[in-house]
C-alpha cells in the first residue's frame, strides 16, 4: 500500500485521505502503528495526523527508516510567522510580504525537501491560476486542479505514483530522461520483431544487460540466448568460435565443435563489440546472416544457423564504414535505421540519486561483499530478526535517531550526491558499480576499525563520508569540460615524457590508472591515433589493435572523443 506524508497547515486533507482513500496509508507524527481511522485519539482533536509545517515534516521523516512513497504538499500555509520558511525573513518584511510567503509557503517547503530528501517524490497541490514559476525537477508533480473533493486528490496521487513507478520496470531503471524514454519505446517495438538489433553506447552503459535481460526475454524466442564478446576472444580462434570447427580442422580441434551461430539457432545471438571484427570475418559473418546457414571450419556440410542477431558496439560504426574499416553491406544488414542508443550516465544526471541508491543496495547484497558484511554483523550484536531485504539508502539527511537496527541504513550527504552528480562517469554503470562497492568496503572497514577501539554497539547508520566519496572519485571526478583530456605531456625522439598531477589522498590504484590513462592519450596524439602502431609500441610486434582498444575502454577513454579532440 503506498505510504503518503501529507504536509498541510490544516488536517482536512489527511482526514479526507483517511475517510475516502483507504488505498493509501498515511504517515503520522505520533509513531503509533495503528492507522488514524481506528485510533481513539482521532476525534479528540489529535494534532499528529499530518505535518503542518516543514519542521514537523522533517521530524516525521526522521523517524522513518524508509521514506514514504510520496509527499502531498499544499501550497498555501496560513501559519504564524515563526513557523514559516525561510527562517531568515529579512527579505520578507511587512504584512504584504508575509502574506505572499504564506501563499507560496509550499514552494519553500518543496525547496527544503529537495535539499534534504532529494529522492522523495512530491505532489504539490496548486491551481491553474497560481502565479509562480513552477520549480523544475524530475520528482515534482503538480496537481493543477483545485482540490475540492477526494476523488480529484486520489486521481492526482495515483497519477504521480504511476509516473514514479513508470521509471522502473522489470530489471531496468528507465528513469525520467528523454534518452532512456526513447530507448524504452524503441525496445518495446523492436523486441517483438525478428529483425536484427544494433545497440550503440559507450562502455559500461549496459548494452549487454539490455540485450540479455530485456530484448531476449521479450522476444518470445524459444531458442537459447548465446552471448559472445568479440573483444575478448583471440583473433585466431574467432572463426571457429563463431562458425564452429570439425575435428582436426586445426591444431587443437580435438572434437567437432558447433559455433555460436549454430548454438543460437532459433534463439538469439548477442555479439558484443562487433566493431572490433576484422574485415575478413565481417565478410564471413555477412554470408552466414544472408544464408541462414553455417559451414564449420574444415567441413563441407551446411547447418542451419538463423538466430535473431543483436549486435552491440561502443564505436561509431558509421564512422568505421566511412574509414573503410567496417563493411557497408554488413552495416546495412544490422538494421542501422532502428539502432538503439544507450545514453551514458552523464546524460542521466536527473536519475543519479536513484542509480546511486540501487548501486549501493546491489553492492550490499553482492557476493564479494558478503565476508565483510558477515564480519560486521558478527562484530556487532545484531537482532535475530535482521532483515537484509529491509536495507535502505538515505541521501540528504541523516536519520540516525530512529534508523532501524534490524537492517542496514547507508547514508550519503547532499554534498556527496552533488559531487557524484558532477562527475562525468566515463566508465558509466561499471564505474558506478565499482564506486558503490568501494564506498561500502571502506565504510564497513572504517566502522569495524572504530569498533576495535571499544565501541560495541553497531552504528545505526552506515555513513559514507564525503571525503571518501572524493577519494573514490579521484581526479576524474573533478568537474571539467568534455574533451579537456589533454595531459601535460611531451613526446620526443628521445622518449616519451608525461607530467602527472598527483593529488594527496588518492589511492595507488587511482594514481596508476591516471598515469596509464594520460600515457595512452599522449601516445594516441603522438601517433595520430594509429591504434596498430600503438599496439606495437605498447605490446610488441604482432599485437592487435583490439588489445589497445580494450584497455582504453577499461580506462574510460573514448576513441570518438580523442579523435574529436585531435581534429
Amino acid at each position, binding site marked *: 500500500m503506498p505510504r503518503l506524508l501529507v504536509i498541510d497547515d*490544516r488536517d*482536512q486533507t489527511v*482526514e*479526507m485521505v483517511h*475517510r*475516502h482513500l483507504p488505498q493509501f496509508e498515511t504517515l503520522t507524527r505520533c509513531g503509533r502503528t495503528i492507522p488514524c481511522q481506528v485510533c481513539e485519539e482521532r476525534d479528540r482533536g489529535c494534532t499528529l495526523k499530518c505535518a503542518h509545517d516543514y519542521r514537523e515534516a522533517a521530524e516525521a521523516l526522521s523517524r522513518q527508516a524508509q521514506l514514504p512513497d510520496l509527499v502531498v504538499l499544499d501550497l*498555501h500555509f*496560513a*501559519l*504564524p510567522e515563526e513557523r514559516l520558511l525561510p527562517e531568515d525573513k529579512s527579505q520578507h518584511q511587512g504584512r*504584504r510580504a508575509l*502574506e*505572499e510567503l*504564506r*501563499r507560496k509557503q509550499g514552494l519553500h517547503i518543496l525547496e527544503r525537501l529537495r535539499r534534504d530528501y532529494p529522492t522523495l517524490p512530491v505532489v504539490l497541490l496548486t*491551481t491553474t*491560476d*497560481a*502565479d509562480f514559476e513552477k520549480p523544475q525537477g524530475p520528482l515534482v508533480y503538480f496537481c493543477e486542479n*483545485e*482540490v*475540492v*473533493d*477526494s*476523488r480529484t486528490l486520489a486521481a492526482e496521487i495515483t497519477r504521480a505514483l504511476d509516473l514514479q513507478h513508470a521509471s522502473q520496470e522489470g530489471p531496468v531503471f528507465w528513469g525520467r530522461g528523454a534518452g532512456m524514454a526513447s530507448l524504452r519505446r524503441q525496445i518495446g517495438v523492436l523486441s517483438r520483431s525478428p529483425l536484427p538489433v544494433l545497440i550503440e553506447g559507450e562502455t559500461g552503459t549496459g548494452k549487454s544487460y539490455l540485450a540479455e535481460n530485456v530484448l531476449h526475454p521479450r522476444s518470445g524466442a524459444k531458442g537459447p540466448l548465446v552471448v559472445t564478446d568479440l573483444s575478448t576472444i583471440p583473433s585466431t580462434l574467432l572463426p571457429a568460435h563463431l562458425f564452429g570447427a570439425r575435428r582436426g580442422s586445426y591444431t587443437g580441434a580435438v572434437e567437432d565443435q558447433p559455433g555460436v551461430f549454430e548454438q543460437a539457432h532459433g534463439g538469439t545471438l548477442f555479439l558484443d563489440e562487433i566493431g572490433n571484427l576484422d574485415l575478413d570475418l565481417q565478410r564471413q559473418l555477412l554470408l552466414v546472416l544472408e544464408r541462414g546457414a553455417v559451414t564449420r571450419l574444415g567441413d563441407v556440410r551446411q547447418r542451419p544457423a538463423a538466430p535473431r542477431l543483436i549486435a552491440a558496439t561502443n564505436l561509431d560504426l558509421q564512422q568505421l564504414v566511412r574509414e573503410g574499416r567496417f563493411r557497408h553491406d554488413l552495416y546495412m544488414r544490422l538494421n542501422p535505421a532502428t539502432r538503439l542508443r544507450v545514453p551514458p550516465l552523464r546524460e542521466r544526471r536527473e536519475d543519479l540519486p536513484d542509480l546511486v541508491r540501487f548501486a549501493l543496495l546491489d553492492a550490499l547484497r553482492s557476493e564479494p561483499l558478503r565476508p565483510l558484511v558477515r564480519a560486521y554483523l558478527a562484530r556487532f550484536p545484531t537482532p535475530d530478526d535482521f532483515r537484509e531485504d529491509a536495507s535502505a539508502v538515505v541521501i540528504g539527511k541523516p536519520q540516525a535517531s530512529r534508523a532501524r537496527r534490524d537492517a542496514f541504513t547507508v547514508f550519503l550527504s547532499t554534498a556527496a550526491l552533488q559531487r557524484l552528480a558532477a562527475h562525468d562517469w566515463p566508465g558509466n554503470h561499471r564505474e558506478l558499480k565499482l564506486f558503490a562497492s568501494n564506498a561500502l568496503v571502506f565504510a564497513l572497514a572504517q566502522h569495524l576499525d572504530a569498533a576495535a577501539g571499544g565501541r560495541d554497539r553497531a552504528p545505526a547508520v552506515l555513513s559514507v563520508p564525503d571525503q571518501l566519496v572524493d577519494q573514490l572519485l579521484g581526479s576524474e571526478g573533478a568537474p571539467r569540460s568534455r574533451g579537456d583530456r589533454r595531459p601535460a605531456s611531451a613526446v620526443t625522439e628521445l622518449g616519451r615524457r608525461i607530467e602527472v598531477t598527483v593529488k594527496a589522498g588518492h589511492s595507488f590504484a587511482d594514481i596508476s590508472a591516471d598515469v596509464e590513462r594520460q600515457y595512452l592519450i599522449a601516445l594516441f596524439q603522438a601517433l595520430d591515433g594509429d591504434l596498430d602502431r600503438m599496439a606495437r609500441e605498447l605490446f610488441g610486434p604482432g599485437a592487435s589493435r583490439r588489445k589497445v582498444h580494450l584497455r582504453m575502454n577499461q580506462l574510460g577513454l573514448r576513441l570518438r572523443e580523442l579523435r574529436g579532440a585531435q581534429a
Partner: protein
Amino acid sequence: MHPWLSRLRHDLVKRAVWPARDLRGASREPQPGDLAQLQRGLFDLRDDAGHALPASALWERLRAEAPPLPAAPLDAFGAAIQQAERAVAGLAGDPRTWLAAAEAVLRIEQAFADLARTLEEE
C-alpha cells in the same frame, strides 16, 4: 488571483466545500462520520493563529480586510455562508436533510465564483 481571494478560498471555501462534494459524490448513504466532516468544514475552521471559529465569524474577519468591492457580491457571499450554516446545523435534528445541507454548502462555491469575477472586473 488576488491574494485576498486566495486566502478566502484556502481558509474557508475549500474547507467547507470539500466534504460537501464528497458527500454528494458518494454512492452510498452518508455515515455519521461524513456528516461530522460536513459540520467541521463549516463550524471548525481556523484563523491564522490556529484558533477555531465558525465560517460566519471567519468571513466577518476576512470581509473587513477585503479589497474595494461593491457590497452586493460580498453580501451574497455572506448570505450563502449563513444559509449553509443553518442547513448544516439542522442536520443535528434531522440527518435525512443531508443532501439539502450539502447543496447549501456547495452554493458557497458559486458565491465565491461571483465574488472573484466581480473583483476581476473591478
